[in-house]
């Protein structure tokens, strides 16, 4: 069985994903956020050089300055990388904004 999951790229993050702000991805049952990150990089990252804009140095976690929300809830409350995706989950990635 595969699940349908929605990913959102806000706060300017869409710039590295071909200006896509919302995308639907299909993942195998049992997938975690960790798996989703790799899938996003494979399917949506326009320029491989920009991977450091999304993932951290070991290309596994998320880089500092990006917030991750699972169904509008901070991923820290949901298990972060190990969270197991459910059908129709909405995972939001947003850059921290600093402008004023």
């Amino acid at each position, binding site marked *: 069985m595969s699940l349908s999951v929605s990913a959102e790229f806000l706060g300017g993050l869409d710039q590295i994903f071909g200006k896509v702000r919302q995308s639907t991805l299909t993942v195998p049952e049992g997938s975690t956020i960790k798996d989703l990150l790799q899938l996003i990089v494979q399917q949506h990252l326009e320029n491989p050089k920009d991977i450091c804009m999304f993932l951290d140095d070991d290309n596994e976690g998320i880089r*500092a*300055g990006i*917030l991750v929300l699972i169904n509008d809830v901070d991923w820290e409350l949901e298990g972060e990388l190990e969270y197991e995706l459910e059908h129709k989950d909405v995972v939001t990635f947003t850059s921290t*904004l*600093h402008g*004023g």
Partner: protein
Amino acid sequence: SSTTTSELSLLEYRRYGRQLLVPQLVENSSSPTEAQLSLKNAKVLVVGAGGLGSPALLYLAASGVGQIGIVDPDTVDMSNLHRQIIHSTTTLDFPKVQSAALAMKNINPFCQVTTYHEPLNNLNSWSIVENYDVVLDCTDTPQSRYLINDACVVAGKPLVSGSGIRTEGQLSIFNHLNGPCYRCFFPNPPAPNSVTACSDAGVIGPCIGLIGTMMAVECLKILTHHYTQDNFKPFMTMYNGFSEQGSQSLRTFKMRGRKADCLSCGDAKKITREDIEAGKINYSQFCGTNIDRYDVIDYKTQQVSI
């Protein structure tokens, strides 16, 4: 450290009457008068008199906040005026704090304004922040955001934090009612190598202004005791002025609480006033770059970072 008043003049009732009719503003006070006195006796510090600070300062002054401090090292530049509506072509090249203070005294002479024409830094942050009841972070660099946060945690002041770029904005309240601080949300600063992608940002005046306006609303809520230990939940509100759904959108995310291992507000409280003032926390170094490279918009090159 200063005297509080327990009376409003007839002029003040006339001036503030319309807002004292709003149940939500007065319901946590014993009377509308007491609610207005909570504003009159309040001291609010606004760091940054730019796109966020402009409406925040105007609305807080207009609403009757008694004492407002403004920190900003900059002067008014022509390129500010498309969005920084507290300033004016007649105050070009004035210190922004002075330009803002003029506008605030014009709209409400009852407001006492204190200006700090300097950057907030390790040496002055604690001694400025300690004089106020609530702090608004209207600045535009990660460095200043970490510094303001640490000073607010050390001094025990709630922090209303806003930011924005292009058509988007973010709003949170930190260090209030045992909730999280900025460092709880962001234990590590963004890496310097993440600062190169968006060379074409910019900002739309009323979009950043909307966040500043929301900051004023949150400040009024804090001052009139709207939030309690029971109803306050850590949040981040995200605004988009050009939403795909048409019109404009706000989404509120439920966020983590205070983290026991936070360097700033955690159980160990590793960052102290002495550390900050002695320069032990080097905010520029901590953020991995010099302060210029982190400007969200570099006014010289028009290069932009996220």
